[in-house]
Structure formats: structure tokens, C-alpha cells
């Protein structure tokens, strides 16, 4: 299969504008007759459904939650990037584009990334107009902060709850369309299959989670905005319900899964504390604006800390290794996530970890507290402030910036991060891989679109902080409303799709037999126990660093686990009732297949790039070693029941940036 990315011709900076001005349109009278299904109500889904409704299409929107507002975009903390250059620090659309391409380790598509950078400025305007209460300066204008991998201040934020505020904005826009009747909302519905007619996506099969009934929903096209697959690792910063099922069902119907091995391990999460743990909690990257990462210089000190004989405050300044500042002086604590995560792993592998498990490093705010305290004292006219005064003033500044994060840390760990440095460790956070899409965000299945984290297109092998919110909203507000017209303009003569067609019948049967198969195993092990074991396998063999031998082994073990799952899983109750265990089982069944394809992809990619670090391909200093000659392509996989998953390549061409070894030194 040849993958056509449909990138328009022309100058990079003109492509989107020209394309937008010349693309096919659907007239208002025809929009009224056209139906669109949107699955997912996170930033991408809610913004898409709302905007398509505003344009006059008939939208049906689905969420497995009890309300669209619960989608996991809500939990994003730090902020959203935009090339506004309000800080006059040299930012521009081109610089945001360049930072994103470089941050992604030259594995994303130039034209998509440039369009993203262009849309970023409109997103901020739109969100402000909706009433998103972004942080402001005393003059009343919008405030910014810095995120990793960049040297400008372009991140807009609302304390540590930016995702919440942006999602509520999109949710309100969606609610307005629901009230106007242009969007019909289906809460507590989970999509379990895509229905294709004559090769085009024409609907979905969904399970009503409240009643267990199986429903057919027809439309002229289907948009998936169903998020990432980080929960394949079991322990991640994703919500418990985040899953790959909708995307994976699309793969089963012929869509391609692109770059599944690119997963982002976020450097600053609260470390694992026990076997019962159900999820990991992120501490926003914004904390690295002010926090300094370190471990003790001496292994004996680290041991003493692990055994509780010493604590961080017992280690004098000259016996601490601020390893990010030492290794990467140009970016310091604000190196990109993949680099910071690997560096933490190296420190802990050397025996310098500071939690009882040995898997934690410090994130220390003492010097920021002192710096801010002195500044505040000066501006308040306090002469010769005492050190306790300085600390008090400094802590107040930190509280204003990150108060909710510090509180959350204290609730979870029982330690006060104002007094003792935070302990942090990398954890799975985001997946750059996803459904393969062209420039129109259309998968290789005509009429099937993928937005936000569910697609692969913008972040290459590593996503920069505060760019996920940007991409979700760019796709939903400013890209799909235009590009969907390219497909739908060819459908204006297509009458309403008939949900009684044989294709719907076949898909419904397919779903019912899957549910029956799972329910009727009646084995002895819980769904959760399989999910935990799967997560451990994927983390061990396809986590922060991978090698060929491990990946081969991991793949074999996953296949064995999958077999065991279908022989020994126990799901209480029946399929025709409210049954959360069955919901989980369907999701875990899909993760058990996806996990295998991740290993296959990681094994195929004989290079290290971004979040994909193959131990065999590293420089002597331990940095990732890319191979642009052989691997500057998108690896898009089709699924095959017999295990011969097929690779389809989209070559990446770089016409505007020079491929360089990424350096943050």
C-alpha cells in the first residue's frame, strides 16, 4: 500500500493558507443533510464536535464517560504553547515549528508541524474569548512561562490546571451546540467497531455502558479523537479508563498504527511506592522552571538516604550532582523530556537513587525560594531581611505559581515539598505514535479521521511540553473543520446511511461475539491481574530503553500472556448490563495486541531517536544515535491475526530544516 500524505505543494509557510483558500467546500444547505460521528470529548473531540456543529453539520458525539467534561485532557497541568511572542523574546511561528521538529528528533512531518505552529496563535484568542481564565500579569495582559526544550517563554497557563480550563472551554462550546440541537451527545457509550461500506467509514457500533445494549450509529464519516495508549503500561499518568480500543478497532478494519514504539516517559512523576499502586501522578514540567534536579555525588550518601539515615538536607551543596545542569549547560533543567528521563535513569542505575526503591531523584526548590524571597523583600522595601523572612516570602511566590501541585504532592506522599525536595522519577505519560493520517488528518480508510493524541502526526519521536494541548485544540478547532470538507464535498449526493445495511449487521455480530467470547471464559484471574502483568512486560522490554534481545523476548511473552488471557480471565456478570469489569476486559484485550505491535515496531527501528532509545545505538556519552539514512520514515503497521504484521513506510522529507544531531549542551 502506498501512503499518500497529501501535503499540498508550495512554500512551507504558504501551504496551509493556500490550501485552505482553494479546498472544496460544502454549502450550508448540504451541511444540514450530512452526519458526522465524533468519538471522544477531550480537547480534540470536544473542540471538533463543537466547531462542526457551529458550521451546521449534524454531529453525533460519543464518550465512555458520564459527562464529556471528564475526558483526560482535564488533567493536563502545565500549559499550552503558542507563538504569540508577547514576551518579545524572539519567538515566531517558524521558531515554534523548528523547536517542535527538533524536539521530535526529526521524525515528524514538516507541513503538519508548521500548520500546528500557525494555528497556535488562534487557539489562545479563541480560548480567551470563551472565558478561559489564563494567568495574567499585573497590567492585565496574558502571562507566559517556559517549558523544556525551548529558549523562549511561550507557554500560556492557568495555574497547574491548564488542561482543565481549556477542556471546560471546549466542553462549554460543545454544550452550547448540544443545546442548539446540532450535536447529539451520547454519554456512557463506548465505540467497539468501525463500520465500513464500499471501503469508506460509515458508522460505528457502540455499547451503551449503562444498559449493555449494542447500538448501531450511521454517518457520512467518522472522526476518532480517543487519546493515546499509554495505559498499555498499566502504570502511567493516564486516567484509569484511557484506552486504545477505538483506535485499535480501526486498525482491525484496515487503518494503520504509526510509530507505536514512540512513547513519552515524563521525567517528573511521583515515584512508585508499592505493588497495589493503580496509577502514577505527574508533577508538571513547569516545575523545572524553578526546581533543580540532583542526586548525591557519593553512592554512600544515596544509600544512607534510602535507608533513612540521612535526608536531602544533610547533603552539603558541594556533594550534590546537579546532573542536568552539568551535562547540558545550555538548557540545564529545561532539557526535553526524553533527555531528562534518560538522565534520571542513568543516575539511578549508578546507585544514586534517593527513595527506598532506589528509583527517585530530587527536584529541589530551595534556591528558587531564596531567589524569589530576596526579590520580594526588595520590592516590598524590606532592608536586611532575615533568612526566615526570605524563605517565607519565597514560599509564597512558589505557592502562587505551583500551589496545587505542591498540595497534591503532599497528599500523595505525606511529605512537605516546601521543606524537603520532591522525589521524582520518570513515568509513562503520552504516546507520540497513533493512527496514521495524511495532511487532512484522514487515515488510510477514506472517511475515517483521527485527531489529537490518537494520531501520530505532529510530535515525531518526542513531544515537547505544553504541545499536546496545542495539538488537540489545533486539530479540533482549526484543522478538521476545513479538511473534513475535502472528503464530505464528495458526499453531498450520498443519502443518509442506512444502519440496517448488511455491513452494520456484520459489525454488530462481530462485537457481540467478542463480548460473548470474553464473558464465557469464566476462568480464575481478574482482568486487572492481566493488565498489571502486561504493563510490567511492556515497561521491562519496551520502556525507557530497549534492545533487540529484550524486544524478541517481550513479544513472545506478550503472545503467551494473550493466550492465557483468553483461557483464564474471569469477568463477573453478563454483557447485557452495566458491567465495568467487562469494559476493562475489552480494553485489556486490545492492549494485549497493541503491546505486541509496539515491540515489533521498536525492533524494526534500528536507531535511537526521541523516546525510542535502543541500547545498541548510542553515542559514547550515552546520547541517542539516530540513523537518518535508513530510518527517516514513519513506520505504519497493519495488524495480521497470524502475527505477520506488515510495515508500510512514509518517507519523511525535510526541505526546510537541516537534519542535525540534536544537542542541548
Amino acid at each position, binding site marked *: 500500500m502506498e501512503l499518500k500524505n497529501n501535503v499540498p505543494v508550495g512554500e512551507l509557510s504558504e501551504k496551509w493558507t493556500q490550501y485552505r483558500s482553494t479546498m472544496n467546500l460544502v454549502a450550508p444547505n448540504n451541511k444540514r443533510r450530512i452526519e458526522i460521528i465524533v468519538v471522544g470529548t477531550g480537547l480534540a473531540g470536544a*473542540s471538533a464536535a*463543537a466547531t462542526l456543529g*457551529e458550521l451546521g453539520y449534524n454531529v453525533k458525539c460519543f464518550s465512555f464517560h*458520564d*459527562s464529556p*467534561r*471528564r475526558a*483526560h485532557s*482535564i*488533567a493536563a497541568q502545565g500549559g499550552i504553547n503558542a507563538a*504569540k511572542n508577547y514576551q518579545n523574546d524572539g519567538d515566531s511561528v517558524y521558531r515554534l515549528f523548528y523547536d517542535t521538529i527538533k524536539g521530535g528528533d526529526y521524525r515528524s512531518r514538516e507541513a503538519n508541524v508548521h500548520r500546528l505552529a500557525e494555528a497556535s496563535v*488562534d487557539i*489562545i*484568542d*479563541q*480560548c480567551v*474569548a*470563551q*472565558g478561559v*481564565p*489564563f494567568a*495574567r*500579569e*499585573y497590567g*492585565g*495582559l496574558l502571562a507566559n512561562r517556559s517549558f523544556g526544550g525551548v529558549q523562549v517563554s511561550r507557554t500560556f497557563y*492557568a495555574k497547574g*490546571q491548564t488542561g*482543565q*480550563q481549556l477542556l*471546560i472551554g471546549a*466542553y*462549554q*462550546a460543545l*454544550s*452550547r451546540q448540544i*443545546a442548539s440541537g446540532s450535536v447529539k451527545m451520547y*454519554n456512557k457509550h463506548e465505540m467497539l467497531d468501525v463500520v465500513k461500506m464500499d471501503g469508506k467509514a460509515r458508522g460505528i457500533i457502540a455499547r451503551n455502558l449503562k444498559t449493555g445494549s449494542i447500538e448501531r450509529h450511521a454517518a457520512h464519516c467518522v472522526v476518532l479523537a480517543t487519546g493515546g495508549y499509554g495505559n498499555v503500561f498499566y502504570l502511567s499518568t493516564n*486516567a*484509569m*479508563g484511557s484506552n486504545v480500543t477505538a483506535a485499535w478497532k480501526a486498525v482491525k478494519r484496515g487503518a494503520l498504527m504509526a510509530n507505536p514504539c514512540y512513547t513519552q516517559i515524563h521525567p517528573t512523576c511521583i515515584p512508585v511506592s*508499592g505493588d*497495589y499502586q*493503580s*496509577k502514577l501522578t*505527574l508533577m508538571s514540567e513547569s516545575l523545572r522552571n524553578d526546581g533543580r534536579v540532583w542526586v548525591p555525588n557519593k553512592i554512600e550518601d544515596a544509600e544512607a538516604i534510602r535507608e533513612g539515615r540521612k535526608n536531602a538536607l544533610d547533603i552539603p551543596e558541594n556533594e550534590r550532582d546537579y546532573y542536568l545542569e552539568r551535562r547540558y549547560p545550555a538548557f540545564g533543567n529545561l532539557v526535553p523530556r526524553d533527555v531528562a528521563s534518560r538522565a534520571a535513569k542513568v543516575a539511578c542505575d549508578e546507585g544514586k537513587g534517593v527513595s527506598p526503591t532506589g528509583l527517585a531523584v530530587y527536584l529541589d526548590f530551595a534556591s528558587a525560594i531564596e531567589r524569589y524571597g530576596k526579590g520580594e523583600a526588595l520590592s516590598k522595601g524590606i532592608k536586611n531581611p532575615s533568612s526566615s523572612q526570605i524563605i517565607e516570602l519565597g514560599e509564597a511566590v512558589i505557592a502562587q505559581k505551583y500551589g496545587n501541585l505542591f498540595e*497534591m504532592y503532599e*497528599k*500523595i506522599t*505525606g511529605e512537605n515539598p516546601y521543606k524537603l525536595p520532591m522525589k521524582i522519577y520518570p513515568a509513562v505519560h503520552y504516546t507520540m505514535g497513533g493512527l496514521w493520517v495524511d495532511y487532512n488528518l484522514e487515515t488510510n480508510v477514506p472517511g475515517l479521521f483521527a485527531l489529537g493524541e490518537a494520531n501520530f502526526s505532529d510530535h515525531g519521536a518526542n513531544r515537547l511540553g505544553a504541545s499536546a494541548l496545542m495539538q488537540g485544540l489545533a486539530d479540533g*478547532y*482549526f484543522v478538521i*473543520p476545513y479538511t473534513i470538507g475535502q472528503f464530505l464535498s464528495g458526499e453531498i449526493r450520498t443519502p443518509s446511511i442506512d444502519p440496517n445495511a448488511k455491513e452494520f449487521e456484520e459489525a454488530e455480530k462481530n462485537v457481540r461475539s467478542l463480548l460473548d467470547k470474553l464473558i464465557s471464559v469464566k476462568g*480464575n484471574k*481478574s482482568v*486487572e491481574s492481566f493488565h498489571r502483568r502486561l504493563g510490567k512486560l511492556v515497561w521491562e522490554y519496551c520502556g525507557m530503553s530497549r534492545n533487540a534481545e529484550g524486544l524478541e523476548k517481550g513479544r513472545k511473552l506478550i503472545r503467551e500472556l494473550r493466550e492465557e488471557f483468553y483461557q483464564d480471565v474471569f469477568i*463477573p456478570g453478563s454483557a447485557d448490563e*452495566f458491567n*465495568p*469489569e467487562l469494559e476493562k476486559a475489552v480494553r485489556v484485550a486490545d492492549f494485549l495486541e497493541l503491546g505486541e505491535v509496539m515491540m515489533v515496531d521498536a525492533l524494526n527501528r534500528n536507531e535511537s531517536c526521541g523516546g525510542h532509545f535502543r541500547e545498541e545505538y548510542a553515542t559514547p556519552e550515552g546520547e541517542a544515535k539516530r540513523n537518518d539514512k535508513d530510518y527517516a520514515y514513519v513506520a505504519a503497521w497493519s495488524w495480521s491475526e497470524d502475527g505477520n504484521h506488515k510495515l508500510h513506510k512514509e518517507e519523511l522529507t525535510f526541505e526546510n530544516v537541516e537534519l542535525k544531531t540534536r544537542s542541548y549542551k
Partner: protein
Amino acid sequence: MKLNLKVWRQKNNDSKGSFETHTVNASEHMSFLEMMDVLNERLISEKKDPVAFEHDCREGICGACSMVINGRPHGPQQGTTTCQLHMRKFKDGDTIVVEPFRAKAFPILKDLVVDRSAFDRIIQSGGYISVNTGQATDGNSVPIEKDLALKAFDAAQCIGCGACAAACPNGSAMLFTSAKVSHLGLLPQGEVEHTKRVQSMVAQMDEEGFGFCSNIGACEVECPKEISTENIARMNRDYFKASLVSE
């Protein structure tokens, strides 16, 4: 630590529910929901029906979790959702009573799961600013006083969990509704529609079967985001003003 749990079990809204007693071994580092996971894993291993409860992000922001623990929505810790409540707040041997959020407008789906879609309908009745995608002017074109933006933010922090209505003896949704009215009404962008918004949201709230506010203040005490009842006072003033200006 060993705990005695009295958990509410109910098949659906039409059936009668009752308490079921279980003993659970937990660790003080667990979150409350992880302790419930332990209970459910055991029930599943005994081929019994696990306790249904809502949960998702487990970091205190999605608003899905919704238990009444020892008589208090989201349990004993101030400003904390159930998922962020940790077992170190309890003692070995404690008896813990776990019930669903109870309010007339929240029918029970199963066990501890209730239907909170009434909140969505309140937002749909006017909890938004009518601006289509693409209509916005530059984000910095209207300066907004920092303190005002923060005040709007404080109200906008509501996670829509329903603890306020569950805590209220009248099952009122005044804190939820007023938080949205304040968030949007305090900002210049939201001013244009403010009068209409406050009227239609209050009307929808009544239609959903939420009770009246009698200034008890339990909602503020139990709100995991510590949203202030000042918002209720502000909404009452605005509602009164709105009924004067419209006929």
C-alpha cells in the same frame, strides 16, 4: 492496617439498597480507591460481584469519583477528592461507612455510581459564552485585572463532582451553578450574556429537581476545590437584578 467497611450495595435505582460488611487489609500509603481495588480484587477472586464506583483520573481533577465516606462527600480530608484521600488518614481497626452521593436529582445507577447528567444540562442551559470558532479577537486586546482573573479562575476550578449537592440537606446545586455563573460573569467576555445566563441556569437547576439553598454552607465545607459560597451570594444578587430588568 485492618479495616471494617460498610459499603452500600444497590442493583439499580428501582431496587432497595443495603449495607454489606467487609474486612480489608490495606496499607497506609494506599489511596482510598486503591483500598477499594483491593476489596474488589478479593470479591472477583471469590467470583462475587465487585462494588461499582466511578473513578478515572485518580489525581483529583476529573470529578468522576463520588463516595460519601463516614457521612462526608469525598471523606474527612478538607479540599480533597476521594481519589486523593490516602489511608494514612485512617487508623487500624477503623470502621468506614461508604455510600453513594445522595440527592434527588442524582438517581443511582448501581452501588456507588450515580447519574449526574443533570449538571451537564445546567451547563447546556447557558453555562457558556456564545462565540463560534474563529470569531475571537486577539487574546491581549482586552486586559483583565489580575485579581479578577484569579477570582474567575477560583470559581472555574469546579470539577462537577456533585459533592455540593450531596452534602446539602436540600440537595441543592447552588454552589455548582453559581460557580459557573461567577466564572463567566466576572470576566468582561461573559458580561454580555450574563443576565440571560443567570436566569436560564437557575431555571434549569430548579427543573432538574435540585432543592433550594438555605444558607447552611455544607457545600463549601465539602467542596474538594474549596469553592466559596460567596459565589452563591453573587448569583442571588445577579438573579434578583436580572428579574428587575427583564419584565
